[in-house]
C-alpha cells in the first residue's frame, strides 16, 4: 500500500473520481481528445493512468470532433451507459452546443421519460493564465439557462472529487467546470468513496452581517476577503454553491434571511450572469427585510484580454469584493 497522501491536487481529485467511478461501474467510460495515456492522459493530465488501468477502449482518445464526441456520449448515455466526455476548453462547447442543448438536455423530457442522458461533460477554463479570448470564458450561465442541464463547479480538490463522482452517478446531463488556474492547487485528500451531493450549496464560513454567494475559484478570494474584514469587525458568511443549476435557493435564502445583506461573486462577466439570477431570487423572496440591495461582482464586460496587466484588470478583484460587501453595510 502507498502511504496516505498529505494533500492532493485538483487534477488528482478529478482522476480519483474517474478511477472510482470506472472501478465501480462498467458502464462508465471516458472519451475526449488525447485522454488515453498514449496521448498523454489529457492536456491537463486529469485522465493520466486510467487507460493503463481500464484499457484504451474505455478511456478513449477521440478525433478533434466535439460534435461527434458529445453526440457519441449522448447516444451511449441513452442506452444506460455513463460517459464522461472531456471537452478540453469550455469555449469549445460552442461547437457542440446543438448536442448539449437540443439533445442531451431535452431527450428525457421529449421522450416523456423513456430515455435519460446520464452524461458528464468536463471542461477546463478560466482567466489569469494567459490563454486569451478563446480559451478562458466562464459560460456557466448559458447552460444553467437550459432546462434539463445541471451545472457544477468545485472550489477545492476534495470537492472536485466528490462532486465529479456524484455527477457521474447522477441520471441527468451535468456540465462539470474546472478552473485551469486551479489544476495544481493542493488540498486535503478525500476519503475513498467521498461524494458531495449535487444541488446542495455549502456554507464554508459562518457569519452574521452579510452573505456572499460564490462558486469555483472566487470562493478562495472571497474567503480571504472575509478573513480581512473579520479583522475590521465585519462578520461575513460565505456560501459555495457547488452546484450552480439546479440552484440551492434554500441554503441561500436561509442565510440571507439571517444576515439581511448579500453579495454575489463570480468570475464570469457580470452582465447577464448567474449573479443576476441569484440576486433576483433574493430580492423576490426577501425584499422587505433586505437592508441593502444585493451586490454583484463579476469580471469586466470585454473578451478576456491577453496582455497580463489587462487580464488581471479584467478579472474580479479582492478590492471589488470588499467594496461590494462594504457597500451593503452602508
Amino acid at each position, binding site marked *: 500500500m502507498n502511504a496516505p497522501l498529505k494533500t492532493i491536487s485538483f487534477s488528482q481529485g478529478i482522476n480519483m473520481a474517474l478511477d472510482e467511478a470506472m472501478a465501480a461501474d462498467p458502464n462508465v*467510460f471516458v472519451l475526449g481528445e488525447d485522454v488515453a495515456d498514449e496521448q498523454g492522459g489529457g492536456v491537463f493530465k486529469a485522465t493520466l493512468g486510467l487507460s493503463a488501468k481500464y484499457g484504451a*477502449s*474505455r478511456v478513449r482518445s*477521440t*478525433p478533434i*470532433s466535439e*460534435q*461527434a464526441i*458529445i*453526440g*457519441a*456520449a*449522448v*447516444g*451511449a*448515455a*441513452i*442506452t*444506460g*451507459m455513463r*460517459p464522461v466526455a472531456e471537452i478540453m476548453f469550455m469555449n469549445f462547447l460552442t461547437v457542440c452546443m*446543438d*448536442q448539449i442543448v*437540443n*439533445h442531451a438536455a431535452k*431527450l*428525457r*423530457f*421529449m*421522450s*416523456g*421519460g*423513456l*430515455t*435519460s442522458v446520464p452524461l458528464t461533460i468536463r471542461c477546463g477554463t478560466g482567466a489569469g493564465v494567459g490563454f486569451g479570448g478563446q480559451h478562458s470564458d466562464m459560460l456557466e450561465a448559458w447552460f444553467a439557462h437550459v*432546462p*434539463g442541464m*445541471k451545472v457544477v463547479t468545485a472550489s477545492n480538490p476534495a470537492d472536485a472529487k466528490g462532486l465529479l463522482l456524484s455527477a457521474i452517478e*447522477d*441520471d*441527468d446531463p451535468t456540465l462539470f467546470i474546472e478552473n485551469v488556474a486551479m489544476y495544481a492547487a493542493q488540498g486535503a485528500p478525500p476519503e475513498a468513496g467521498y461524494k458531495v451531493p449535487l444541488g446542495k450549496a455549502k456554507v464554508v464560513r459562518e457569519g452574521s452581517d452579510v452573505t456572499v454567494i460564490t462558486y469555483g475559484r472566487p470562493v478562495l478570494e472571497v474567503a480571504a476577503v472575509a478573513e480581512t474584514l473579520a479583522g475590521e469587525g465585519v462578520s461575513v458568511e460565505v456560501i459555495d454553491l457547488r452546484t450552480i443549476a*439546479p440552484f440551492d435557493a434554500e441554503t441561500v435564502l436561509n442565510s440571507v434571511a439571517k444576515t439581511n445583506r448579500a453579495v454575489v461573486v463570480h468570475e464570469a462577466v457580470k452582465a447577464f450572469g448567474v449573479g443576476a439570477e441569484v440576486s433576483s431570487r433574493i430580492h423576490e423572496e426577501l425584499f422587505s427585510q433586505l437592508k441593502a440591495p444585493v451586490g454583484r461582482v463579476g469580471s469586466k464586460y470585454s473578451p478576456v484580454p491577453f496582455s497580463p496587466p489587462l487580464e488581471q484588470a479584467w478579472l474580479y478583484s479582492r478590492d471589488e469584493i470588499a467594496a461590494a460587501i462594504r457597500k451593503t453595510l452602508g
Partner: protein
Amino acid sequence: MGLAKAASDAADVDTDTLLEIYRRTALINRTDEKFRALLMSGTLRLVYYPVRGQEVVSAAMMTALRPDDYLVTTYRGVHDQLAKGIPPKILWAEFTGKATGACKGKGGPMHITHPETGVMVTTGIVGSGLPIANGLGLSSLLKGDGRVTVVCFGDGSTNIGAFHEAMNMASIWKLPVVFLCQNNRYGEHTAFADSTSAGRIVDRAPGYGMNAVRVDGNDASEMYAAAKAAVDRARAGGGPTLIEAMTYRMLGHVFGSNASYVPKALQEEAVREDPVPRLRQKLLDLQVPEATLAGIEQAIDGVIAEAVEFALSSPYPDIGEIRKDVLGQEIAA
C-alpha cells in the same frame, strides 16, 4: 462492393421477404395518406412532413434489422418509425399530443422515441442524429450486445459538419452503424445538385475509408440487398456502411407547402417510378395472389382507423407533466 454487388444480390430476395417489405410499405403509405387527409379536412393541426415516395426505402431497410436493433431518424421519420415497428396507436397519439402517446405527448411529431422497438431518437435538427447513432453503436461495441444502429437522414444533411465528424469517427472506431441517406433530391426547396458539391453522396465515403453503396431505394430487392449487406457487415464487426438510397420526395417539404420549384419532367418521372405500385406489381408478377395483397391493405386500414380513433379520443396530458421529466427529480411546483 458498390452498385454491382447490390444488384447481383437483389435477385436473391425471396418472396416472403418482399411480402414483409410490402406489409411495411403499405402501412407507411396508408398512414401518410391518412395524416394528409385529416390535415386537409381540418381534423388535425400539426406540422407534418410527408413521406410519400420514400416508403420502400424504410420498409426494406428495417426488414433487414432485428427488432432490438436501434434506429435514429429525423422529423421526416414516420416511415422509419413505422417500419421499425412502433405501434401505430401510440405513434398517432404522440403526433396529436395526447397523454397516451409514445412520449406522453411531450415530444410530438418531430421527437418520437420508443425504445421498446428500438426507436431511440428522432431529431428535428438536420444532421444531429449521426453523432448520436455513433454513441448507440459505441454502446453496442463496449457491451458486446450485437445490436446494429441505423441512422436515417436526407441528402441535405450531408452538407452539415455533424455528418462529416460522425462519418470519420464511425469509420476509425469501426462502429456497427448503417448510415442511410435517403436522397429524395431536395432539401426544403433546394435541389440536391444546387447544394451539394459531390455529384453522388457515396463519393464522399472513400474520404472516410467507409464502405458505401448507391442503390435505387425505390426498388425493394435492391434496397433490401444493400441493407442486408450493410447490417450483416456491421453485426460481424466489419464497421459502418453508407447507403445512398435514391428516392424521391413526391410532395412538398411539409404538408401544405407548394412544390412548384420541382421541374415537371422530374415529377412525371417520379410518378412513373412510384415505388409502391412498383412493389405491388412485382409481387403479383411473383404469383402472389391479388387477394393476399388486398387482405394486407384492408387489415392495415383497420389498424390505422383504430389508431386514429384511439388518438382522437385520448386525453391531453396533465399540466403537471411540465414539471416531470425535465430532470430525474420532479421540479417543485
